[in-house]
């Protein structure tokens, strides 16, 4: 009897020794962004919400570890001590209401303890009132649009990594699949409210370091918020499966000091005004083709293929397409207004008049396409939009 008790104690000590070991393991890779092997845990992030989430995560994690150590401790002890090969004779007990009650009630109490901080954090996370700045975030197949409400600043933010790099024809650089054409810029220390919606399918806007993930759902506007405490570049991703290029629509948030933000916003406003002027200019075919090639590669090639070949059964080829070689009005119509009920989006609100003119002109002349009206000017696009 004595020796059994001794053995039990020894087994228990062994099991308990495991937990601190795991503590040490988890603490070891403190250098977080060292990448690769060191990336083991959730980032603490730079907002109060993200930090609270991190804390709850760690508390629940350690509770689980300790329960695991106890349960598995008993189990491994039995596996070791109560083996038939060691001549152990089986006991016959098989029920005990008291024990059942104990292990119903204690876990329930532990769960209640966990629920308190969780409720508090959730309330904070849901408090979107009194924001200093509103940014509308729209998920498109496969890019994001940011509109600074109350200003006329709004732009698309798309993957900047090249297809060549994805398909191994060019090297992968440090921010492979984490770089965008233009990041969303927010001021540090200000409460920014994000109004999140989707233009086609459901996406999800996730920036771990801001502690924000919210679905971008067509027909709904979801609200969430973040107050970045430190300047920096925070990278996130689309988290809801949204079709082919789900993995290729990253998010980059640039949190800058307030003055820098104001300067940036003013410059963007000026850009918007300048772009309106460009709309009046008449371009040459060469200019439009050069610009169009760039816009096509960025906005259209993912579906219609790098050389207009499309994907059979899903996305039509534009090479030899009747619309691309037919009347300009039809071509403008499908690009500006899209085709409801298909993956072909309305690009009218996504691209500037200049970009639209360029990409349409490009499609009418590239890959051997031939048609009479082969040039479309920004002014034509502008007029087309007005007529609607």
């Amino acid at each position, binding site marked *: 009897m004595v020796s059994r008790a001794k053995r039990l104690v020894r087994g228990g000590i062994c099991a308990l020794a495991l937990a601190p070991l795991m503590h040490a393991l988890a603490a070891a890779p403190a250098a977080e962004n060292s990448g690769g092997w060191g990336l083991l845990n959730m980032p603490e992030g730079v907002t109060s919400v993200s930090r609270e989430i991190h804390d*709850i995560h760690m508390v629940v994690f350690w509770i*689980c570890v300790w329960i695991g150590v106890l349960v598995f401790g008993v189990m491994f002890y*039995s596996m070791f001590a109560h083996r038939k090969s060691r001549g152990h004779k089986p006991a016959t007990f098989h029920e005990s209401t008291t024990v059942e009650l104990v292990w119903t009630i204690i876990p329930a109490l532990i769960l209640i303890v966990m629920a308190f901080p*969780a409720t508090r954090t959730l309330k904070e996370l849901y408090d979107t009132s009194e924001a200093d700045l509103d940014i509308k975030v729209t998920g498109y197949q496969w890019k994001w649009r940011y509109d600074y409400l109350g200003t006329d600043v709004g732009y698309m933010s798309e993957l900047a990594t090249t297809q060549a790099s994805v398909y191994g024809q060019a090297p992968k650089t*440090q921010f492979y699949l984490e770089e965008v054409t233009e990041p969303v810029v927010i001021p540090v220390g200000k409460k920014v409210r994000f109004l999140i919606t989707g233009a086609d399918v459901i996406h999800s806007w996730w920036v771990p370091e801001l502690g924000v993930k919210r679905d971008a759902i067509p027909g709904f506007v979801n609200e969430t918020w973040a107050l970045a405490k430190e300047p920096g570049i925070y990278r996130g991703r689309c988290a809801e499966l949204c079709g082919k290029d*789900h993995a290729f629509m990253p998010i980059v948030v640039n949190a800058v000091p307030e003055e820098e933000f104001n300067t940036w916003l003013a410059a963007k406003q000026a850009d918007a005004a300048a772009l309106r002027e460009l709309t009046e200019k008449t371009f040459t075919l060469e200019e439009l083709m050069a610009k169009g090639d760039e816009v096509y590669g960025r906005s259209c090639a993912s579906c219609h293929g790098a050389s207009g070949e499309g994907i059979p059964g899903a996305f039509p080829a534009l090479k030899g397409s009747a619309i691309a070689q037919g009347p300009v009005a039809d071509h403008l119509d499908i690009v500006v207004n899209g085709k409801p009920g298909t993956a072909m989006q309305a690009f009218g609100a996504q691209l500037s008049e200049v970009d639209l003119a360029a990409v349409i002109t490009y499609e009418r002349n590239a890959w051997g396409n031939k048609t009479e009206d082969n040039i479309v000017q920004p002014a034509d696009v502008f007029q087309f939009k007005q007529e609607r």
Partner: protein
Amino acid sequence: MAHGPAKGIRRWLFATNHKDIGTMYLWFSFTMFLLGGFFAMVVRAELFEPGMQIVRPEFFNQMTTMHGLIMVFGAIMPVFVGLANWMIPMMIGAPDMALPRMNNLSFWILPFGFTLLASTLFMEGGAPNFGWTFYAPLSTTYAPPTVNFFIFGIHIIGASSIMGSINIIATILNLRAPGMTLMKMPLFAWTWLITAFLLIAVMPVLAGAVTMMLMDINFGTSFFDAAGGGDPVLFQHIFWFFGHPEVYIIIIPAFGVISAIIPTFSRKPLFGYSSMVYATAAIAFLSFIVWAHHMFTVGMPIAGELYFMYATLLIAVPTGVKVFNWVSTMFRGAITFETPMLFAIAFVVLFTLGGFTGVMLAIAPADIQYHDSYFVVAHFHYVMVAGALFSSTAAVYYWLPKWCGRMYNETMGKVHFWVSFIGFNITFFPQHFLGLAGMPRRYADYSLQFADWNMVSSIGAFIYGASQLLFLYNVIATIVAGRKVSDPKIWEGAEGLEWTLPTPAPYHTFSTPPAVK
């Protein structure tokens, strides 16, 4: 014995014998397991390193989708129906299933359902690519044209499940041997009885969801289309009202299997039988009222979030009771470690790990970070693979000698176990890290900081995948040329009516009901 099996193909086509139908279910499910596993290998091969090397993103999405659909509906659900067919009549002293012809039908429509589903791989537009959860509008407005085949495939699979469930309920409620009261039934019968009710309750909901999709796609309705006044989030509510009970449909029969194996190899009766029954029923009930914990990021009102968080946390209580009971069964037993026991022990450990991450996921604010990341992928593979699959593997090793009167090769079984166990953990443990570090699920490609653990995970997957071929070989070798055994009680510690029957189990058993005291 009145007569033996029919000859040739007629034996299988017109099968009404529960053992034959059980066998067909098991082989069907293993075939689907290999197919779904092959898709997983494609996925892991593509994710071996950053960049697209093997497939294109659109095909990658087809692979993840088909992997999920085939594994859930084709491998795991049928394997337990197969085990139920074989074992429930033998465990409760019944001559056969209550509705043998329906049994035949419910099996034979399955291959058609899955052929319909898999044939889309060869069609224009490709197979379903919207994930096994097929959220609208990606699965409606934006779906490939083959989505209609998917919808009818789901209908057929659902009909099969419902028929199978009716049959199991009718068998258990009507054909128990005299004296076998409900509270004397083996736990496997209990868990299946509860599962069957879950299935009957939620398969029609799934059928409703896909029918609404069918209407939206082909007949101009707008159930899920915001532009027409519909609601994409409604889809998720309906789907998860089915989907959450579905995960318990998958795991509850596994509880039954484990509750048979652990006592046998501990040579000690199951601890807390009645609390096991109540816990199972409690889990089944709770599974109906927690569905929106899969939707913590859709923007529900905070009251909804809180409710679903609290309700979900509750599930940990009866689940904990089960684990504690299994451990107490082992405690002070006389344990041996044959292959079924090894898988059962691994089940308890790994399923509990999956349960822990489940509790973490239930914490709504933390789920904001976990949701749709690899952390979730790790979590559900711990409960699905190490839970459902390990337990069905354990079940096959446990009962195979009874079924065919031949012993499997124990050494090979142990090798299979260790390679599976190690391969499984190499595959899925690092996925916790990936998810916490920010890698979303269903990504065809990823940024460089995720490269190391992804490569480890892929290597593990290849190991785990390869080890299943060993299993296949071991099973076939046993059936064809295994060492003959004839002791009714294959395992020293086994209890129950099935072990009173001769080995191998004759074609017809319990034509006269046994007496149960």
